């Protein structure tokens, strides 16, 4: 028993020593991630109404997003100014931190009728990549339970061309807007579907 405790200690210390060497020059992952909480919520789960939750999202998506804010490739209000404050290594650490957090959903004012229409659209056009109704962390973040105003902004940016869509997404969105009656309503229906998920 004693041997085991010592060994565990040695293993943890070994991990620390390695981590310590990597972190010697900079802040830890949680220290860095704490700076995000004022806008994105404690541990990255937002209380709304608009700022997106970043808890539980894939590390790759976090890194890609921050890099695109830094370079100006992705439009934003404030994140372009904030992302430039973190080094590539710091962004990686934050990505790892948020990927491990649980995405906590809050009640939003989603309309049931719009949401059920949105579900049909989601199943037809989106589910293939945004699996399980958008609950899975994928290459585009987590959609289920995401803040509705943020989803609207994102759709606006995608459809007006200020933010580029991945090829597959673009063809699906184009198809949806063309095939569905009143194309722009379909986006609002999707927003309500994602916003309705608990």
């Amino acid at each position: 028993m004693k041997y085991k405790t010592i060994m565990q200690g040695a293993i943890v210390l070994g991990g620390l020593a390695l981590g310590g060497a990597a972190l010697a020059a900079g802040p830890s992952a949680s220290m860095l991630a704490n700076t995000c909480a004022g806008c994105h919520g404690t541990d990255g789960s937002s209380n709304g109404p608009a700022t997106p939750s970043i808890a539980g999202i894939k590390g790759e998506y976090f890194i890609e997003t921050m890099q695109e804010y830094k370079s100006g490739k992705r439009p934003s209000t404030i994140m372009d100014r904030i992302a430039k404050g973190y080094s590539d290594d710091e962004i990686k650490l934050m990505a790892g931190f948020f990927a491990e957090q649980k995405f906590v959903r809050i009640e939003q004012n989603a309309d049931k009728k719009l949401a059920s229409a949105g579900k049909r659209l989601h199943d037809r056009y989106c589910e293939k990549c945004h699996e399980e109704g958008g609950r899975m962390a994928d290459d585009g973040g987590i959609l289920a339970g995401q803040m509705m105003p943020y989803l609207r902004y994102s759709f606006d940016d995608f459809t007006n061309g200020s933010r580029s869509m991945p090829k597959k997404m673009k063809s699906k969105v184009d198809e949806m807007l063309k095939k569905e009656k009143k194309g722009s309503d379909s986006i609002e229906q999707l927003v309500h579907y994602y916003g309705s998920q608990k």
Partner: protein
Amino acid sequence: MTHITRRSFLKVAGGTAAVGAIGVPHLAFGASKKVVVVGGGIGGATMAKYLRRADASIEVTLIEPNKHYYTCFMSNEVLGGERAMDSIKFDYTGLGKHGVKVVNDTVTAIDAAARKVTTAGGQSFSYDRCVVAPGIDFRWDAIGGYDEKVAETIPHAWKAGPQTTILHKQLQDMKDGGTVIIAPPVGPFRCPPGPYERASQIAHYLKKHKPKSKVLILDASDKFSKQGLFMAGWKKHYGDMIEWVSAANGGKIESVDAASRTVQGTVDKFKGDVVNVIPPQKAGKIAHIAGLVNDKGWCPVNQGTFESTIHANIHVIGDASIAGAMPKSGYSANSQAKVCAAAVVALLNGMEAPVPAYVNTCYSLITPEHGISVAAVYQLVDGAIAGVKGAGGLTPADASEETLRREVAYAHSWFKNITADTFG
């Protein structure tokens, strides 16, 4: 590694002892770790919560005289008629759930040598580390004829709560065609863009309900935070309704006559129908009593740990502290509290304080559709908090109307999230 549970710490400590690589922590195992937090504003409340989150073996007592806290941020929206007082009111039940012991009392003394805090209610609390977060106090001797008593009729409304209500009611009672005077102080003061957001929000209210009225800003300075963005926004939405008089043009006020609602500038006298004097500021009272201030009335600290450079084992965070390039804001206080909490947890566990990271974002609402912001990311450089070069800055002057609308939505989100992060 700031999330140190007792178990993982013991594991680390066990390993340390076994290999004998690093010094043995100076605290004996099982020794109590007591932290007393003085003040339950944004800094103090965040501090208490994040200490408990990081190390549940620390006994945290937060001492605060009021049962409720009204946030200064977003209180201008109350004046603008866009928000109810109840929405900026918070209590300490959330902290209780984290295991913070909340005591409603006023700290009257801190004995740095004996590590003991005493209160007006006759209680005393010993500590291993004390965190002082008293916010601001006013320099009541700076403006002739203006003191705490006069503030009941000529409100400062720079601490939210009853003062906000007084100013709000005066605006509602004012006749159309009246003049509202706002007199910002010389810096440093709490919330640098605040007076100008206030002018915007009051103009928003007046435009809707009393359109012949005016807002006159009599400034003790010659420039102000987000100046270009504010002035462009004022012109766009309020025309000539808001007039700004810089100190150089006679804006600095020297005295107040409460009965006639008149203020004396360096050149002219100005008469208002509602007068809002924001006096010059200093660190909160207890910081002075405890001898934590410098000759300018603010608290010098080690900017990496927020430990006072005057008294060991006492940390000062938020508006009262001298925190390098960080402004005195709610977000700064929240961010500093987390850095300080991580340092205190490490130090109480016999470890070195971790490398800090800080942030600040300040939103200002010019109309319910026009928000602007300033942001900065900070790091510790040669012992001083400095903005990361090439990052941060203002909303672009040519931002689209859609962007300005989104900034409002994000400002409201910031409010929800920072208050939940602090009190929840």
